[in-house]
C-alpha cells in the first residue's frame, strides 16, 4: 500500500479496497519500523491520525469525500498545529503546544486529510542540509551517510522512504526544491502569496512560501489544490482565483518553449548532473517542446542578496522569541535584559544565531542602505531578468542543485559553501516566482533533480510540464534500496 501515490490511494479509498484506518495504520507501522534510522519525525500523532481516519471513513461512506479525504500526510514542524507540539526544529519551542492551526493545516483538515505527525527540519528553516535541527539530523534514505537537504529534509526523506504519501514543506531559498532533488521526489514552491503564511512560523517574510512535496506532480497538484487560495489573515496573500490544477495535467506540450539559462550551466555544476538535465530536456523535445538559450545576467548576485534579505528579516521575525509569553525561558534571570539575552542564547542554535547577528548588523544604524536596501534593489534586477526571459520562453529549466546529496559534516564548518548549495534556487524566491523540482536520474546512486521555473501563477503549467515528463519516464517511481518492501 505504501508504494501507491496519493491519486492511487484516493481511488482505492473510493472503491472501498481499503479503509483510511487501514491505510493510516499501515503508515504508522512503517514509521515505527523505519523512522528510528531516518529521524524524519519530531512528533508522531498516532491517536489523532486514527481518529481523523475514522472520521474520513465515515465521510467516504456518506459520499462526501474530497480528493484528500482519508489520505495520510505529514506536516513540516513549522506549521502550527492545535494541541500538538510545534517546535520549528528548535530548543526555543521544544515546549510549545500551539493553541491554533495554521491556515494550511485548517485546509487539510477541511479536506479530510489525516495528519501522521510533525516532520523534522532545519532549525527555524535555516539550513541546506537538515543538520541544524535541535532534534538531530535527518538521514537521506538513499544513503544514510548523506544529508537529505534542507530545510524540508524531514518532509523529503519521509516521502522518499514511503513513510507518508505526501508532506508539506516551506521554501525560503530552495527548501522544498533542494531536499526534493536530494531525496528523489517532486516538490513545488508556488508563487509568493499563492498560499497563506498564517500560522506558518516566519523566517524571512518576503521570501517564505509553503508548498507540497510528494512522489509525483499529480500528487502535488492534488495537495496544492487544497492548500492554495486567499486568506485575509495573511496580508501578503494574493486574492486571485485558484485554477483546477489536476485538470491542467492533460494539456499537450506541443510547442512548449523551454529556456536554458547559460548561468545555470557554468562552473561549479557537477558534469554528471549537467548531462542528466540535458537528457531530460531531450525528452521534452520528444514531447514537442522547443529549446532556446536565455540569460539571467544578475543570477550571480542572488545568493549575496539573499544572505542580506533573509537574515535581516529573520532577525526581525525572531525578535518575538524573548522568553516572556511562550517558548524557552532561562533559569533565575537577574533582570529583564538577562532574561532576554540568556533565553535567546540558550534557545537558539549556532546557525540561527549567525543569521540573527548578520541581520541585526545589516539593519543597524548606518548600514540599512548599504545592505538591506541595496539587496532589495538587486531583487528588482533579478525579477526583471526573469521577466525578459519569459517574454521569449514559457518555462526555464536547469539543475536544482549543483551536486547530489553530500556527506554529513562536509559543509557544516563553512557557511558560504553551505549557502551555495542553494545557488540555483534562491533567485526564484527573490523574484517570487513558482519553481519545482522533479527527479531526472541518478549520479553515484543518488537522485538528481531538475528545476522547472515558470511565470507568476503558472503552477498549473509547471505541474503539467512535470506530469507529462513523469508519464514518459520512471525516475519518480524508484524507491531507495532496503526501503522498497
Amino acid at each position, binding site marked *: 500500500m505504501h508504494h501507491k501515490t496519493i491519486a492511487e490511494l484516493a481511488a482505492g479509498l473510493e472503491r472501498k479496497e481499503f479503509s483510511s484506518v487501514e491505510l493510516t495504520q499501515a503508515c504508522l507501522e512503517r514509521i515505527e519500523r523505519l523512522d528510528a534510522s531516518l529521524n524524519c519525525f519530531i512528533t508522531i500523532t498516532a491517536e489523532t491520525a486514527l481518529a481523523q481516519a475514522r472520521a474520513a471513513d465515515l465521510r467516504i461512506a456518506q459520499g462526501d469525500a474530497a480528493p484528500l479525504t482519508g489520505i495520510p500526510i505529514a506536516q513540516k514542524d513549522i506549521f502550527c498545529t492545535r494541541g500538538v507540539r510545534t517546535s520549528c526544529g528548535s530548543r526555543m519551542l521544544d515546549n510549545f503546544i500551539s493553541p491554533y492551526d495554521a491556515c494550511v493545516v485548517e485546509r487539510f483538515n477541511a479536506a479530510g486529510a489525516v495528519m501522521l505527525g510533525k516532520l523534522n527540519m532545519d532549525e527555524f528553516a535555516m539550513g541546506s542540509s537538515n543538520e541544524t535541527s535541535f532534534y538531530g539530523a535527518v538521514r537521506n534514505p538513499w544513503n544514510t551517510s548523506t544529508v537529505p537537504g534542507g530545510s524540508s529534509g524531514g518532509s523529503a526523506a519521509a516521502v522518499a522512504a514511503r513513510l507518508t504519501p505526501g508532506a508539506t514543506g516551506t521554501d525560503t531559498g530552495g527548501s522544498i526544491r533542494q531536499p526534493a532533488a536530494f531525496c528523489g521526489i517532486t516538490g513545488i514552491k508556488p508563487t*509568493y*502569496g499563492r498560499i497563506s503564511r498564517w500560522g506558518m512560523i516566519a523566517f524571512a517574510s518576503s521570501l517564505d512560501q509553503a508548498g507540497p512535496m510528494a512522489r509525483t506532480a499529480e500528487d502535488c497538484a492534488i495537495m496544492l489544490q487544497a492548500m492554495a487560495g486567499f486568506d*485575509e489573515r495573511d496580508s501578503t496573500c494574493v486574492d486571485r482565483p485558484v485554477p483546477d490544477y489536476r485538470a491542467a495535467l492533460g494539456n499537450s506540450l506541443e510547442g512548449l518553449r523551454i529556456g536554458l539559462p547559460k548561468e545555470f550551466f557554468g562552473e561549479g555544476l557537477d558534469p554528471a548532473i549537467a548531462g542528466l538535465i540535458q537528457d531530460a530536456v531531450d525528452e521534452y523535445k520528444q514531447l514537442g517542446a522547443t529549446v532556446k538559450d536565455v540569460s539571467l545576467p544578475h543570477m550571480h548576485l542572488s545568493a549575496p542578496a539573499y*544572505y542580506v534579505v533573509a537574515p535581516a528579516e529573520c532577525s526581525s521575525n525572531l525578535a518575538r522569541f524573548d522568553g*516572556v509569553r511562550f517558548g524557552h525561558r532561562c533559569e533565575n534571570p537577574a533582570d*529583564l535584559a538577562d532574561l532576554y539575552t540568556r533565553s*535567546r542564547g540558550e534557545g537558539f542554535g549556532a546557525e540561527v544565531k549567525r543569521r540573527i547577528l548578520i541581520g*541585526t548588523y545589516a539593519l543597524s544604524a548606518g548600514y540599512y542602505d548599504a545592505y538591506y536596501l541595496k539587496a532589495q534593489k*538587486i531583487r528588482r534586477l533579478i525579477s526583471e531578468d526573469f521577466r525578459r526571459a519569459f517574454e521569449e520562453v514559457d518555462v526555464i529549466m536547469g539543475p536544482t542543485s549543483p551536486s547530489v546529496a553530500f556527506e554529513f559534516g562536509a559543509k557544516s564548518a563553512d557557511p558560504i559553501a553551505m549557502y551555495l548549495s542553494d545557488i540555483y534556487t534562491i533567485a526564484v524566491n527573490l523574484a517570487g516566482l513558482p519553481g519545482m523540482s522533479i527527479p531526472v536520474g541518478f549520479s553515484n546512486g543518488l537522485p538528481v533533480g531538475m528545476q522547472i521555473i515558470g511565470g507568476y501563477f503558472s503552477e498549473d503549467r509547471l505541474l503539467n510540464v512535470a506530469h507529462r515528463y513523469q508519464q514518459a519516464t520512471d525516475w519518480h517511481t524508484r524507491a531507495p534500496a532496503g526501503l522498497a518492501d
Partner: protein
Amino acid sequence: MSLSAAEVNKIAWLARLAIDDDKVEAYARDLSQILDFVEQLGSADTSQVAPMAHPLDEAQRLRPDAVTEADQRALFQSQAPLVEAGLYLVPKVIE
C-alpha cells in the same frame, strides 16, 4: 570587511542574544566571511532601481479598524513560562 570580537559582542547585545565567550571569535570569522561574500552586491549599479518589497508590487492590505477576535488570554497564557492574575511575570525592571 572584518568584524572584531568587540563588534560581534556589540551586535549580539543589540540583538539581545547571549553568545558564549569562547565562541565569539568563531562568530567574528564567520560573519566577516559572510560580509565579504555580500560585498559583491556593490558590483551592480542600482542608482535608478526601485527596491522590491513584494514581488507583485502589491500594497499592504488593510482591514477595518474593528475588533475581530475573541478574548483568548487564558488559552494563550497557558503556554507562558510564568503568569499571575492574567499578567506575564518577568524580573523586576524598576527598583
